[in-house]
Protein backbone atom coordinates (compact mmCIF):
# COMPACT_ATOMS: atom_id res chain seq x y z
CA UNK A 1 0.00 0.00 0.00
CA UNK A 2 1.26 3.48 -0.81
CA UNK A 3 0.15 6.94 0.14
CA UNK A 4 -0.89 8.72 -3.03
CA UNK A 5 -1.79 12.39 -2.93
CA UNK A 6 -4.60 13.21 -5.34
CA UNK A 7 -6.42 16.24 -6.67
CA UNK A 8 -10.00 16.57 -5.47
CA UNK A 9 -12.86 18.79 -6.49
CA UNK A 10 -14.91 19.48 -3.38
CA UNK A 11 -18.00 21.40 -2.38
CA UNK A 12 -17.80 23.78 0.59
CA UNK A 13 -21.22 23.81 2.21
CA UNK A 14 -22.82 26.79 3.93
CA UNK A 15 -22.27 25.19 7.34
CA UNK A 16 -18.53 24.80 6.69
CA UNK A 17 -18.30 21.14 5.69
CA UNK A 18 -16.16 19.94 2.79
CA UNK A 19 -17.76 17.31 0.57
CA UNK A 20 -15.47 15.69 -2.04
CA UNK A 21 -17.16 15.33 -5.46
CA UNK A 22 -14.50 14.19 -7.93
CA UNK A 23 -11.12 12.49 -7.44
CA UNK A 24 -8.55 13.09 -10.13
CA UNK A 25 -6.10 10.19 -10.29
CA UNK A 26 -2.36 10.58 -11.01
CA UNK A 27 -2.80 9.43 -14.65
CA UNK A 28 -5.46 12.07 -15.26
CA UNK A 29 -8.52 9.84 -14.94
CA UNK A 30 -11.38 11.39 -12.99
CA UNK A 31 -13.78 9.48 -10.76
CA UNK A 32 -17.13 10.87 -9.64
CA UNK A 33 -17.91 10.23 -6.00
CA UNK A 34 -21.50 8.95 -5.92
CA UNK A 35 -21.95 9.29 -2.18
CA UNK A 36 -19.98 9.97 0.98
CA UNK A 37 -21.23 7.36 3.46
CA UNK A 38 -19.12 8.20 6.52
CA UNK A 39 -16.87 11.01 7.73
CA UNK A 40 -14.61 10.69 10.78
CA UNK A 41 -11.09 11.33 11.95
CA UNK A 42 -9.00 8.23 11.34
CA UNK A 43 -5.49 7.01 10.69
CA UNK A 44 -4.33 4.98 7.72
CA UNK A 45 -1.69 2.57 9.03
CA UNK A 46 -1.19 1.14 5.56
CA UNK A 47 -0.42 4.46 3.91
CA UNK A 48 1.06 6.25 6.91
CA UNK A 49 -1.16 9.27 7.28
CA UNK A 50 -4.10 10.55 9.24
CA UNK A 51 -6.81 13.15 9.03
CA UNK A 52 -10.50 13.37 8.21
CA UNK A 53 -11.42 10.14 6.47
CA UNK A 54 -14.25 10.11 3.93
CA UNK A 55 -15.77 6.75 3.01
CA UNK A 56 -16.79 7.28 -0.61
CA UNK A 57 -18.86 5.19 -3.00
CA UNK A 58 -17.43 5.28 -6.53
CA UNK A 59 -19.08 3.15 -9.22
CA UNK A 60 -20.65 0.98 -6.52
CA UNK A 61 -17.32 0.36 -4.76
CA UNK A 62 -16.29 1.77 -1.42
CA UNK A 63 -13.02 3.56 -1.05
CA UNK A 64 -11.43 5.79 1.56
CA UNK A 65 -10.19 9.31 0.93
CA UNK A 66 -8.31 11.30 3.59
CA UNK A 67 -7.94 15.02 4.07
CA UNK A 68 -4.68 15.49 5.98
CA UNK A 69 -4.21 19.17 6.89
CA UNK A 70 -4.80 20.65 3.41
CA UNK A 71 -3.90 17.69 1.21
CA UNK A 72 -6.03 14.80 0.01
CA UNK A 73 -4.65 11.25 -0.19
CA UNK A 74 -5.76 7.67 -0.82
CA UNK A 75 -4.04 4.41 0.09
CA UNK A 76 -3.22 2.91 -3.25
CA UNK A 77 -2.51 -0.78 -3.84
CA UNK A 78 0.45 -0.04 -6.11
Amino acid at each position, binding site marked *: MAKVFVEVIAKFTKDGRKVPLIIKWEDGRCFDIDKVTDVR*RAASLKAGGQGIRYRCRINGRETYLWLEEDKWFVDSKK
Partner: protein
Amino acid sequence: MNRIILHSDLNNFYASVECFYDPKLRNCPVAVCGSQSTRHGIVLAKNRIAKEYGVKSGEAVWEARSRCPGLVVVRPNYMRYLRFSMMVRKIYENYTNLIEAFGIDENWLDVTESTMLFGSGEKIADELRKRIEYELGITASVGVSFNKIFAKLGSDMKKPDATTVISPENYKEKIWGLPAGDMIYVGPSTRRKLADIGISTIGELACAPPRFLEKHFGQWGRTLWMFANGYDETPVTRLDFQPGIKGVGNSLTTPRDLCGDNDVKILTYVLADSVAERLRRHHLKGRTVQIYIRSGDLTFIERQGKLPYYCHTSSEIAEKALEIFAASWDWSKTIRTLGIRVTNVVMDNECGQLSLFDDERRLRREQLESSIDRIRSRFGHYSVQRAVLLKGNGLSASPVEENASEI
Protein backbone atom coordinates in the same frame (compact mmCIF):
# COMPACT_ATOMS: atom_id res chain seq x y z
CA MET B 1 -15.09 10.89 47.48
CA ASN B 2 -11.86 9.83 45.81
CA ARG B 3 -10.74 11.73 42.73
CA ILE B 4 -10.27 9.86 39.47
CA ILE B 5 -7.06 10.96 37.79
CA LEU B 6 -5.69 9.58 34.54
CA HIS B 7 -2.13 9.93 33.34
CA SER B 8 -1.72 9.34 29.65
CA ASP B 9 1.71 8.75 28.14
CA LEU B 10 2.16 8.45 24.37
CA ASN B 11 4.48 5.48 23.82
CA ASN B 12 7.89 6.29 22.26
CA PHE B 13 6.18 9.40 20.94
CA TYR B 14 8.61 10.88 18.37
CA ALA B 15 9.66 7.46 17.08
CA SER B 16 6.04 6.24 16.91
CA VAL B 17 5.03 9.24 14.81
CA GLU B 18 7.97 8.67 12.44
CA CYS B 19 7.19 4.95 12.11
CA PHE B 20 3.54 5.74 11.54
CA TYR B 21 4.38 8.07 8.65
CA ASP B 22 6.87 5.70 7.07
CA PRO B 23 5.56 2.10 7.13
CA LYS B 24 8.97 0.84 5.88
CA LEU B 25 10.51 1.81 9.24
CA ARG B 26 8.10 -0.21 11.36
CA ASN B 27 10.18 -3.40 11.44
CA CYS B 28 13.53 -1.63 11.86
CA PRO B 29 15.24 -0.26 14.96
CA VAL B 30 14.60 3.48 14.72
CA ALA B 31 16.00 6.41 16.69
CA VAL B 32 14.99 10.05 16.30
CA CYS B 33 18.18 12.08 16.73
CA GLY B 34 19.27 15.69 16.44
CA SER B 35 21.70 16.76 13.76
CA GLN B 36 25.26 15.49 14.24
CA SER B 37 26.73 18.23 12.08
CA THR B 38 25.39 20.90 14.45
CA ARG B 39 26.43 18.72 17.42
CA HIS B 40 22.84 18.07 18.56
CA GLY B 41 23.40 14.41 17.74
CA ILE B 42 21.79 12.66 20.68
CA VAL B 43 18.97 10.12 20.75
CA LEU B 44 15.71 11.97 21.45
CA ALA B 45 13.46 8.92 21.15
CA LYS B 46 13.66 5.33 19.97
CA ASN B 47 11.15 2.70 18.99
CA ARG B 48 10.55 -0.62 20.77
CA ILE B 49 12.98 -2.58 18.55
CA ALA B 50 15.81 -0.10 19.18
CA LYS B 51 15.02 -0.26 22.89
CA GLU B 52 15.50 -4.04 22.81
CA TYR B 53 19.02 -3.43 21.49
CA GLY B 54 19.68 -1.25 24.54
CA VAL B 55 19.51 2.14 22.76
CA LYS B 56 18.85 4.82 25.37
CA SER B 57 17.42 8.34 25.11
CA GLY B 58 20.07 10.99 25.68
CA GLU B 59 23.03 8.97 24.44
CA ALA B 60 25.15 10.05 21.48
CA VAL B 61 24.29 8.69 18.04
CA TRP B 62 27.64 6.87 17.76
CA GLU B 63 26.99 5.12 21.10
CA ALA B 64 23.52 4.06 19.93
CA ARG B 65 24.97 2.82 16.61
CA SER B 66 27.61 0.77 18.43
CA ARG B 67 24.86 -1.01 20.39
CA CYS B 68 22.63 -1.41 17.36
CA PRO B 69 24.54 -1.43 14.05
CA GLY B 70 21.40 -1.47 11.86
CA LEU B 71 19.88 1.53 13.63
CA VAL B 72 17.87 3.80 11.33
CA VAL B 73 18.43 7.40 12.39
CA VAL B 74 15.77 9.94 11.47
CA ARG B 75 15.73 13.71 12.03
CA PRO B 76 13.04 15.14 14.32
CA ASN B 77 10.00 16.85 12.89
CA TYR B 78 8.85 19.06 15.76
CA MET B 79 5.94 20.67 13.94
CA ARG B 80 4.50 17.25 13.26
CA TYR B 81 4.93 16.20 16.91
CA LEU B 82 3.26 19.40 18.08
CA ARG B 83 0.37 18.79 15.71
CA PHE B 84 -0.06 15.25 17.05
CA SER B 85 0.18 16.49 20.63
CA MET B 86 -2.56 19.02 19.95
CA MET B 87 -4.78 16.43 18.27
CA VAL B 88 -4.38 14.09 21.25
CA ARG B 89 -5.32 16.96 23.52
CA LYS B 90 -8.45 17.55 21.42
CA ILE B 91 -9.43 13.94 22.14
CA TYR B 92 -8.92 14.50 25.89
CA GLU B 93 -11.06 17.63 25.71
CA ASN B 94 -14.02 15.43 24.82
CA TYR B 95 -13.86 14.00 28.33
CA THR B 96 -12.75 16.82 30.63
CA ASN B 97 -11.44 20.38 30.73
CA LEU B 98 -9.08 19.50 33.58
CA ILE B 99 -6.02 18.59 31.53
CA GLU B 100 -2.47 19.31 32.61
CA ALA B 101 0.36 18.78 30.15
CA PHE B 102 3.60 17.27 31.38
CA GLY B 103 5.85 17.65 28.37
CA ILE B 104 4.68 17.18 24.80
CA ASP B 105 3.56 13.56 25.20
CA GLU B 106 2.17 13.24 28.73
CA ASN B 107 -0.97 14.64 30.31
CA TRP B 108 -2.88 14.32 33.53
CA LEU B 109 -6.67 14.36 33.27
CA ASP B 110 -9.06 14.76 36.19
CA VAL B 111 -12.18 12.83 35.10
CA THR B 112 -13.89 12.68 38.51
CA GLU B 113 -16.94 14.57 37.29
CA SER B 114 -16.87 13.00 33.82
CA THR B 115 -17.51 9.48 35.14
CA MET B 116 -21.21 10.38 35.47
CA LEU B 117 -21.28 10.79 31.68
CA PHE B 118 -18.71 8.36 30.36
CA GLY B 119 -18.41 5.54 32.92
CA SER B 120 -15.53 4.52 35.18
CA GLY B 121 -11.98 5.87 34.96
CA GLU B 122 -10.82 2.59 33.47
CA LYS B 123 -13.53 2.75 30.80
CA ILE B 124 -12.54 6.31 29.89
CA ALA B 125 -8.86 5.30 29.78
CA ASP B 126 -9.61 2.38 27.44
CA GLU B 127 -11.72 4.62 25.23
CA LEU B 128 -8.95 7.23 25.06
CA ARG B 129 -6.39 4.61 24.05
CA LYS B 130 -8.66 3.21 21.34
CA ARG B 131 -9.42 6.64 19.94
CA ILE B 132 -5.76 7.71 19.92
CA GLU B 133 -4.81 4.57 18.02
CA TYR B 134 -7.76 4.72 15.63
CA GLU B 135 -7.54 8.42 14.86
CA LEU B 136 -3.80 9.02 15.05
CA GLY B 137 -2.17 5.62 14.51
CA ILE B 138 -0.02 5.76 17.68
CA THR B 139 -0.48 4.15 21.09
CA ALA B 140 -0.70 5.39 24.66
CA SER B 141 -0.37 3.90 28.13
CA VAL B 142 -2.81 5.21 30.70
CA GLY B 143 -2.61 5.03 34.47
CA VAL B 144 -5.85 5.42 36.45
CA SER B 145 -5.67 6.31 40.11
CA PHE B 146 -6.90 8.61 42.87
CA ASN B 147 -3.94 10.99 42.73
CA LYS B 148 -1.47 12.30 40.16
CA ILE B 149 1.59 10.47 41.54
CA PHE B 150 0.02 7.00 41.36
CA ALA B 151 -1.62 7.73 37.98
CA LYS B 152 1.84 8.56 36.57
CA LEU B 153 3.27 5.37 38.11
CA GLY B 154 0.40 3.43 36.53
CA SER B 155 1.11 4.71 33.04
CA ASP B 156 4.75 3.61 33.41
CA MET B 157 3.91 0.10 34.62
CA LYS B 158 2.55 -1.47 31.46
CA LYS B 159 3.71 -0.40 28.00
CA PRO B 160 2.76 -0.10 25.23
CA ASP B 161 -0.96 0.44 24.78
CA ALA B 162 -2.27 -0.56 28.21
CA THR B 163 -4.42 0.70 31.06
CA THR B 164 -3.26 0.18 34.65
CA VAL B 165 -5.58 0.88 37.54
CA ILE B 166 -4.13 1.72 40.95
CA SER B 167 -7.02 2.01 43.39
CA PRO B 168 -7.18 2.76 47.13
CA GLU B 169 -7.78 -0.98 47.58
CA ASN B 170 -4.85 -2.33 45.57
CA TYR B 171 -2.13 0.34 45.71
CA LYS B 172 -0.13 -1.32 48.49
CA GLU B 173 0.05 -4.59 46.67
CA LYS B 174 0.66 -3.01 43.25
CA ILE B 175 3.23 -0.33 43.91
CA TRP B 176 4.75 -0.63 47.33
CA GLY B 177 7.14 -3.28 46.07
CA LEU B 178 8.45 -1.03 43.26
CA PRO B 179 11.82 0.74 43.59
CA ALA B 180 11.51 4.20 45.16
CA GLY B 181 13.22 5.63 42.05
CA ASP B 182 10.16 4.69 39.94
CA MET B 183 8.17 7.40 41.67
CA ILE B 184 8.06 10.79 39.96
CA TYR B 185 10.23 13.44 41.66
CA VAL B 186 12.62 10.77 43.03
CA GLY B 187 15.68 11.33 40.87
CA PRO B 188 19.07 9.60 41.05
CA SER B 189 20.30 11.85 43.86
CA THR B 190 17.23 11.38 46.11
CA ARG B 191 17.28 7.65 45.33
CA ARG B 192 20.90 7.43 46.49
CA LYS B 193 20.13 9.36 49.67
CA LEU B 194 17.13 7.11 50.35
CA ALA B 195 19.31 4.03 49.82
CA ASP B 196 21.81 5.46 52.34
CA ILE B 197 19.11 5.39 55.02
CA GLY B 198 17.96 1.90 54.05
CA ILE B 199 14.95 2.81 51.91
CA SER B 200 14.82 1.19 48.50
CA THR B 201 11.11 0.63 47.75
CA ILE B 202 8.05 2.88 47.67
CA GLY B 203 6.56 0.74 50.46
CA GLU B 204 9.59 1.31 52.70
CA LEU B 205 9.30 5.03 52.02
CA ALA B 206 5.60 4.95 52.90
CA CYS B 207 6.20 3.09 56.16
CA ALA B 208 9.14 5.21 57.32
CA PRO B 209 8.30 7.71 60.08
CA PRO B 210 7.72 11.13 58.43
CA ARG B 211 9.83 12.85 61.10
CA PHE B 212 12.77 10.60 60.26
CA LEU B 213 12.41 11.56 56.58
CA GLU B 214 12.13 15.24 57.49
CA LYS B 215 15.38 14.95 59.41
CA HIS B 216 17.17 13.79 56.24
CA PHE B 217 15.31 15.67 53.49
CA GLY B 218 13.69 18.62 55.26
CA GLN B 219 10.12 19.44 54.22
CA TRP B 220 10.62 17.44 51.04
CA GLY B 221 10.91 14.26 53.16
CA ARG B 222 7.33 14.62 54.40
CA THR B 223 6.14 15.37 50.86
CA LEU B 224 7.74 12.18 49.55
CA TRP B 225 6.18 10.23 52.41
CA MET B 226 2.77 11.67 51.48
CA PHE B 227 3.30 10.75 47.81
CA ALA B 228 4.20 7.16 48.71
CA ASN B 229 1.09 6.82 50.87
CA GLY B 230 -1.24 8.18 48.21
CA TYR B 231 -1.97 11.41 50.12
CA ASP B 232 -1.01 13.67 47.19
CA GLU B 233 -3.80 16.16 46.67
CA THR B 234 -2.21 18.37 44.01
CA PRO B 235 -4.97 19.36 41.61
CA VAL B 236 -4.85 18.86 37.86
CA THR B 237 -4.49 22.38 36.48
CA ARG B 238 -7.42 23.62 34.46
CA LEU B 239 -7.28 23.61 30.70
CA ASP B 240 -7.78 27.36 30.49
CA PHE B 241 -5.23 28.18 33.20
CA GLN B 242 -2.40 30.30 31.80
CA PRO B 243 0.61 30.29 34.08
CA GLY B 244 2.44 33.61 34.18
CA ILE B 245 5.66 33.77 32.20
CA LYS B 246 8.58 33.97 34.64
CA GLY B 247 11.31 34.52 32.09
CA VAL B 248 12.32 34.23 28.48
CA GLY B 249 15.51 32.50 27.42
CA ASN B 250 17.37 30.87 24.58
CA SER B 251 20.47 28.74 24.48
CA LEU B 252 22.43 27.35 21.57
CA THR B 253 24.97 24.59 21.14
CA THR B 254 27.11 25.84 18.30
CA PRO B 255 28.49 23.79 15.37
CA ARG B 256 32.01 24.42 16.73
CA ASP B 257 33.30 25.40 20.18
CA LEU B 258 33.52 29.12 20.89
CA CYS B 259 37.11 30.02 21.49
CA GLY B 260 37.33 33.79 21.88
CA ASP B 261 35.53 36.94 22.93
CA ASN B 262 34.55 37.69 19.35
CA ASP B 263 32.73 34.33 18.99
CA VAL B 264 30.92 35.01 22.27
CA LYS B 265 29.99 38.51 21.15
CA ILE B 266 28.41 37.20 17.95
CA LEU B 267 26.45 34.48 19.72
CA THR B 268 25.40 36.84 22.52
CA TYR B 269 23.85 39.22 19.98
CA VAL B 270 22.11 36.31 18.22
CA LEU B 271 20.63 35.08 21.50
CA ALA B 272 19.79 38.55 22.82
CA ASP B 273 18.01 39.34 19.54
CA SER B 274 15.89 36.24 19.87
CA VAL B 275 15.13 36.77 23.58
CA ALA B 276 14.27 40.45 23.08
CA GLU B 277 12.00 39.67 20.14
CA ARG B 278 10.11 37.12 22.22
CA LEU B 279 9.84 39.49 25.17
CA ARG B 280 8.29 42.11 22.90
CA ARG B 281 5.95 39.56 21.35
CA HIS B 282 4.64 38.73 24.84
CA HIS B 283 4.53 42.45 25.82
CA LEU B 284 7.06 41.86 28.59
CA LYS B 285 10.08 43.67 29.93
CA GLY B 286 12.69 42.14 32.19
CA ARG B 287 15.29 43.36 34.61
CA THR B 288 17.53 40.40 35.41
CA VAL B 289 19.85 38.97 32.78
CA GLN B 290 21.18 35.44 33.32
CA ILE B 291 23.82 33.71 31.26
CA TYR B 292 24.47 29.99 31.02
CA ILE B 293 27.87 28.75 29.85
CA ARG B 294 28.60 25.09 29.17
CA SER B 295 32.18 24.27 28.35
CA GLY B 296 33.61 21.66 25.99
CA ASP B 297 33.92 19.18 28.90
CA LEU B 298 30.16 19.59 29.57
CA THR B 299 30.49 21.35 32.94
CA PHE B 300 28.47 24.54 33.22
CA ILE B 301 28.07 27.76 35.18
CA GLU B 302 25.20 30.22 35.50
CA ARG B 303 25.66 33.89 36.40
CA GLN B 304 23.25 36.79 36.57
CA GLY B 305 23.16 40.55 36.85
CA LYS B 306 20.57 43.29 37.18
CA LEU B 307 19.75 46.03 34.70
CA PRO B 308 19.06 49.53 36.06
CA TYR B 309 15.55 49.43 34.53
CA TYR B 310 13.11 47.01 32.88
CA CYS B 311 13.81 46.57 29.20
CA HIS B 312 13.11 44.46 26.14
CA THR B 313 15.75 45.65 23.70
CA SER B 314 18.44 43.30 22.46
CA SER B 315 21.28 45.82 22.66
CA GLU B 316 20.80 46.38 26.38
CA ILE B 317 20.35 42.68 27.09
CA ALA B 318 23.44 41.81 25.02
CA GLU B 319 25.58 44.50 26.66
CA LYS B 320 24.63 43.28 30.13
CA ALA B 321 25.22 39.64 29.14
CA LEU B 322 28.67 40.49 27.77
CA GLU B 323 29.50 42.39 30.95
CA ILE B 324 28.52 39.36 33.09
CA PHE B 325 30.46 37.08 30.76
CA ALA B 326 33.63 39.15 30.99
CA ALA B 327 33.48 38.94 34.78
CA SER B 328 32.79 35.19 34.88
CA TRP B 329 34.89 33.44 32.22
CA ASP B 330 38.67 33.19 32.08
CA TRP B 331 38.94 31.20 28.84
CA SER B 332 40.66 28.24 30.49
CA LYS B 333 38.17 26.14 28.52
CA THR B 334 36.34 26.53 25.22
CA ILE B 335 32.55 26.96 25.22
CA ARG B 336 30.11 24.47 23.74
CA THR B 337 26.77 26.04 24.69
CA LEU B 338 25.78 29.58 25.56
CA GLY B 339 22.41 30.69 26.87
CA ILE B 340 20.77 33.99 27.81
CA ARG B 341 17.65 34.35 29.89
CA VAL B 342 15.79 37.46 31.04
CA THR B 343 13.81 37.08 34.26
CA ASN B 344 12.11 39.35 36.79
CA VAL B 345 9.59 40.30 34.10
CA VAL B 346 6.65 42.73 34.13
CA MET B 347 4.12 43.71 31.48
CA ASP B 348 5.56 46.39 29.18
CA ASN B 349 2.72 48.83 29.89
CA GLU B 350 3.41 48.88 33.63
CA CYS B 351 4.66 52.09 35.22
CA GLY B 352 8.41 52.24 35.73
CA GLN B 353 10.98 54.61 37.14
CA LEU B 354 11.98 57.14 34.49
CA SER B 355 15.55 58.31 34.08
CA LEU B 356 16.32 61.99 33.73
CA PHE B 357 19.14 61.46 31.26
CA ASP B 358 18.89 58.62 28.81
CA ASP B 359 15.17 58.04 28.31
CA GLU B 360 15.13 59.47 24.82
CA ARG B 361 17.92 57.16 23.71
CA ARG B 362 16.10 54.16 25.23
CA LEU B 363 12.87 55.12 23.57
CA ARG B 364 14.62 55.39 20.21
CA ARG B 365 16.17 51.95 20.69
CA GLU B 366 12.77 50.48 21.53
CA GLN B 367 11.21 52.08 18.45
CA LEU B 368 14.06 50.87 16.27
CA GLU B 369 13.74 47.28 17.47
CA SER B 370 9.93 47.29 17.08
CA SER B 371 10.45 48.45 13.48
CA ILE B 372 12.92 45.60 12.96
CA ASP B 373 10.30 43.15 14.28
CA ARG B 374 7.82 44.43 11.71
CA ILE B 375 10.34 44.20 8.85
CA ARG B 376 11.25 40.65 9.89
CA SER B 377 7.64 39.57 10.11
CA ARG B 378 7.12 40.77 6.52
CA PHE B 379 10.39 39.84 4.85
CA GLY B 380 11.88 37.09 7.04
CA HIS B 381 14.26 37.00 9.96
CA TYR B 382 17.45 37.47 7.96
CA SER B 383 16.20 40.53 6.05
CA VAL B 384 17.72 42.82 8.73
CA GLN B 385 20.78 41.84 10.69
CA ARG B 386 23.39 43.42 12.88
CA ALA B 387 26.66 44.05 11.08
CA VAL B 388 28.52 42.03 13.74
CA LEU B 389 26.59 38.94 12.66
CA LEU B 390 27.75 39.18 9.05
CA LYS B 391 31.12 37.80 10.06
CA GLY B 392 29.49 35.08 12.10
CA ASN B 393 31.47 32.07 10.76
CA GLY B 394 28.51 29.77 11.19
CA LEU B 395 27.56 31.16 14.59
CA SER B 396 24.99 33.72 13.55
CA ALA B 397 22.01 31.45 12.83
CA SER B 398 18.92 32.46 14.79
CA PRO B 399 17.92 29.72 17.26
CA VAL B 400 14.22 30.22 16.55
CA GLU B 401 14.62 30.31 12.76
CA GLU B 402 16.98 27.36 12.64
CA ASN B 403 14.79 25.19 14.85
CA ALA B 404 11.89 26.02 12.58
CA SER B 405 13.87 25.14 9.47
CA GLU B 406 14.81 21.78 10.97
CA ILE B 407 11.14 20.89 10.98
